[in-house]
């Protein structure tokens, strides 16, 4: 019996959706690039070479071309991934860390805590997020950490609403009621019985939210209020390309393409996770 169990489990593992594999593959390659490029003798991201300005993509020295200061776009894109990835992942984590517990609490407490939390969610979502982000950054100052903070503080309702809606249904499930009949403490019911059941949708939402955060980070950096101006985030690269849009369109196409690539792979991962886990939970029921 136990042999068949492990066999069927292994089958679950290997049946990964193609989208998930492709998405993860792209992210891994992007993640490895900044470490692999120097080993291949590619120029550094901040090396200025005024003889090599506006090199077209495809040249031997600059595979994806160079910018107005002769910096290698491939190297800048690779380093930019580190920044953009870190900013997106941290702000997603922050938004999850704020949103999930508040959503759980709102679902569990039917009285005034629920009303207060739901009103805070509505309040937060009613701000135009870009304007709110500009205001907040104006108050707390520009920088990588404040970028993360602002994105997290403005987007946690995404998680709060999903957790709230799904917990309401799960709190009615027999196995949660059974836990209550066993005298399990309420916080433990919420975090050990309800939250694990939300894992599939939370994982998928996290992947989608990561994509949103990546775009938001680039948008804010493009406007010059995101990551520090001298860092080579994709948003900053896009901002640089603005002045040379007709002269050197590849300066815009490289970071824009990178953003599209990572956003698409994050969405593929999100889709893959939801198909994978939906399939598994259906089998378990």
């Amino acid at each position, binding site marked *: 019996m136990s042999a068949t169990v492990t066999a069927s489990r292994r089958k679950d593992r290997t049946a990964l959706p193609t989208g998930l594999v492709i998405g993860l593959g792209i992210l891994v390659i992007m993640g490895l690039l900044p470490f692999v490029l120097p080993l291949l003798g590619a120029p550094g991201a901040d090396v200025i070479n005024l003889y090599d300005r506006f090199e077209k993509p495809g040249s031997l020295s600059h595979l994806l071309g160079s910018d107005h200061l002769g910096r290698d776009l491939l190297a800048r894109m690779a380093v930019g991934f580190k920044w953009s990835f870190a900013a997106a992942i941290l702000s997603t984590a922050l938004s999850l860390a704020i949103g999930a517990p508040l959503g759980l609490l709102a679902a569990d407490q039917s009285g005034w805590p629920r009303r207060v939390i739901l009103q805070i969610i509505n309040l937060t979502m009613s701000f135009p997020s870009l304007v709110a982000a500009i205001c907040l950054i104006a108050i707390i100052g520009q920088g990588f950490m404040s970028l993360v903070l602002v994105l997290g503080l403005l987007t946690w309702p995404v998680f709060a609403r999903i957790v709230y809606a799904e917990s309401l249904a799960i709190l009615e499930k*027999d196995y949660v009621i059974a836990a209550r009949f066993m*005298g399990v403490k309420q916080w433990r019911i919420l975090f050990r019985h309800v939250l694990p059941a939300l894992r599939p949708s939370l994982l998928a939402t996290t992947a989608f939210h990561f994509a949103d955060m990546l775009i938001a980070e680039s948008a804010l950096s493009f406007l010059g209020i995101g990551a520090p101006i001298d860092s080579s985030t994709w948003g900053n690269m896009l901002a640089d390309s603005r002045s040379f849009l007709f002269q050197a369109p590849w300066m815009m196409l490289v970071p824009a393409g990178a953003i599209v690539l990572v956003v698409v792979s994050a969405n593929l991962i999100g889709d893959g996770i939801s198909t994978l886990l939906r399939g598994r939970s259906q089998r378990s*029921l």
Partner: protein
Amino acid sequence: MNNTAMTNTGPILALQNLSVAFPTKDGDRAVLDNISFTLHEGDVLGLVGESGSGKSLSVLSLMKLLPPNARIKSGKINFLGQDLVHATENDMRRIRGRDIGMIFQDPFSSLNPVRRIGDLLTESVLRHQKVSKAVARDIAIKALADVALPAPAERIDNYPHQLSGGQRQRVVIALAGINNPSLLIADEPTTALDPTVRMQVLALIKKAATKRSVILVTHDFGAAAQICNRIAVMYYGRVVETGTAEQILTAPVHPYTKALMAAVPRFSTEHAFAPIPGDPPKPTERFDGCSYRPRCPAAADDCRSIPPLTDVGGHSIACWRATQPGLPS
């Protein structure tokens, strides 16, 4: 064991004139009306009745897990010398799972599908007993062995979906009894099971009853006949007849109990399958007097006042016809 109150010789549980009501627009609507029963150690009480008769609500009210808008209007719940009506939520959390174990109806939905059965078992042990994780795991394995789950030491790491329905119900029983509670409540424990597995599960519950008392909530006289020594028949929020299992099963007096027994299908041409005419009353309906009156073949004018539960030789019946002449048999 984990309970000093076990040493007293009084009843384990005594419900006295318990009434529970839901507030509605036109006043409180009673869903339990003067429920009383007493359980001693070793007793297996069958609460029998149709859906909506209040048998599950009785259980919920003694666990203090009623829907938030329901109120205990009056009455007493005495459990091992404690007054549960006035117990705080914190006290109740300690009692649930430690002193009162609950066996659920549907083993498919009452085990969390994303957690290993061992996690569920040890969680309950660690909640109520001061033991290490390793000891809790040993207790869990022993509990699974006690309910005759094969290979408990391996099964403990399984997820519910890896077990069959009967195995899951064994896990549910192990979970209910893991902290050695004084009272075990089984809420229709066999409804969701195959007839063959049913017998085994009932035997397990009967075995568990030797050291404690059990309430079996069921609509199945067959299940009640197998393991109960006492039966209380409920109709529309009231106990209409209660006595020893033998009295109720062989000599029922209340017209409802008789009708309920006649409604059990049998493989016999002599006993025709006789469904009870009419429908059970809706919770919103109101009656003066006996709530079975609209469906009762023996109803008469005096049934317009509520018949009290009257003792007739250790066998209590709430029916005017039972205590007065003119009862059709």
